[in-house]
């Protein structure tokens, strides 16, 4: 890869006169030894899976394997159509779609890890709702996934993308940064604006702990995907309107590394702290263990 930081990525884009997605595609083909067409087609398949998951999740009331969650995407989707909903319908839709994909994930349905399964709702939520709103082609969206991937690649190699290593900021936070930066480019923003969007988005999730009830990717993971999609839209709008991340985005990524490394074990996916160890959290686990007679935690 010709870049290892966001700054380098933006510089390569400027010097080559190419958008982020094209730089990523070229470097991906070089790394894999396959053609750019082959790599692009693989990404296109992934976008197909994302759209299917949105459709499946939005219409389903199926509960997760644990029985703890399910049906919220449908509830939220229906509510967004009400005239008194606080979010305007397109924003509500992004939120509902993100919930939908996360619910499909919790019910052992098919999704794409973006960057992980726990944060698989944010990017499809933002992408599919924006595609509907602006009438973009699938090809345009697939390009956007390469942009998101380039941003995620930089975050992952300079900090982390798993809750076990860096808390939820590493999963949901990274997903929001990736979605926000990609949305900026999809809407015609410059690489520099896309990079600012990443920093703006990440700042808002710094310190977010990973505390899943029972260690399951359900509570609070699913709702955090819904909120994440809304945050990504907001970060993209801020960047496109000219707001800059005064602390450079690469430095924000370093802060995520610092905060995640300092985070106690109980708040890094072990389910030994946070929401997982509230009286209700513990009670839910006791109940599930009783029902299944199998160890949960």
């Amino acid at each position, binding site marked *: 890869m010709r870049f290892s930081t966001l700054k380098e990525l933006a510089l390569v884009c400027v010097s080559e006169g190419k958008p982020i997605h094209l730089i*990523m595609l070229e470097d991906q083909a070089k790394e894999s030894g396959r053609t750019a067409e082959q790599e692009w087609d693989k990404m296109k398949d992934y976008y197909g899976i994302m759209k299917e998951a949105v459709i499946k999740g939005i219409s389903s009331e199926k509960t997760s394997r644990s029985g703890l969650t399910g049906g919220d995407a449908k509830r939220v989707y229906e509510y967004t159509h009400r005239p008194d909903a606080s979010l305007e319908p397109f924003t509500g839709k992004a939120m509902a779609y993100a919930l939908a994909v996360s619910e499909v994930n*919790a019910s*052992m349905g098919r999704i794409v890890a973006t960057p992980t399964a726990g944060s698989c709702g944010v990017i499809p939520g933002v992408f599919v709702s924006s595609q509907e709103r602006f009438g973009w082609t699938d090809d345009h969206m697939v390009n956007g996934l390469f942009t998101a991937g380039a941003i995620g690649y930089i975050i992952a190699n300079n900090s982390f993308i798993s809750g076990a290593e860096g808390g939820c900021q590493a999963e949901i936070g990274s997903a929001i940064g990736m979605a926000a930066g990609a949305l900026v480019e999809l809407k015609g923003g410059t690489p520099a604006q896309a990079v600012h969007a990443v920093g703006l988005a990440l700042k808002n999730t710094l310190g977010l702990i990973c505390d899943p009830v029972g260690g399951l990717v359900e509570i609070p993971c699913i709702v955090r995907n819904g909120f994440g999609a809304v945050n990504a839209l907001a970060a993209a709008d801020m960047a496109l309107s000219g707001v800059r991340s005064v602390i450079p985005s690469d430095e924000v990524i370093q802060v995520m590394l610092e905060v995640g490394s300092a985070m106690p074990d109980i708040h890094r996916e072990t389910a030994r702290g946070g929401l997982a160890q509230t009286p209700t959290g513990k009670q839910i686990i006791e109940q599930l263990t009783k029902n299944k007679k199998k160890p949960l935690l």
Partner: protein
Amino acid sequence: MRFKDVFSIIGPGMIGPSSSHTAGAVRLGRVARELFGGQPKQADILFYGSLAATYSGHGTDLAVTAGLLQFETDDERIPESLHFADEMGIRVTFQTSRGPAIHPNTLTITLRSGRRRYKMTGCSIGGGNIEVVEVNGFDLKFTANYPTLIVYHEDRPGVLADLTRLLSDAKVNIGYMDVDRKGRLGHAATVIETDGEIREELLKKIKQLDNVKSLSYIHLNGGVRS
């Protein structure tokens, strides 16, 4: 760089709910099956650490079984894999260990068929990526992301030179290599990850080398031979 390409960030396409507890587990099961070569009669799975604590809630048991049946990470039959295994006459058992683990998400798979027995330990390191750490008592590390050759041989001077010469003659580039032996001049094993496919004739030549006993070759995304 820990993450090498765009598809380690966007992807894999998978059945939920957890890239490390579900998708990674499918891949570990799949690697064990390919290394074993053929269908096992019995599969015993031992979970450590976080997998021991949450395997049921994450469907890790279903995921490993799916891998043993050669399902891909995004196969919608994964939730019913135990049923399919039963139909195919594969007995699968699950146990948890309280012992210390090398990584929070570690599992050991032992496959049997008649007298044949194969044991593999691996870790699911996040985002569906895996690392195998032990094969049949040899400490060998590999990711199964590349064409992977495991050669079982005697620990003698020149074995590795012969092996790498054959690969070099065939213009196959070695990306990574790891060697372990049970004792000086005893049994040894070498794992080699390559950038390109290793052809059938080359595998035959390697098998015929002095002091080479057997080999396995896997290429998860491009067919399997052993």
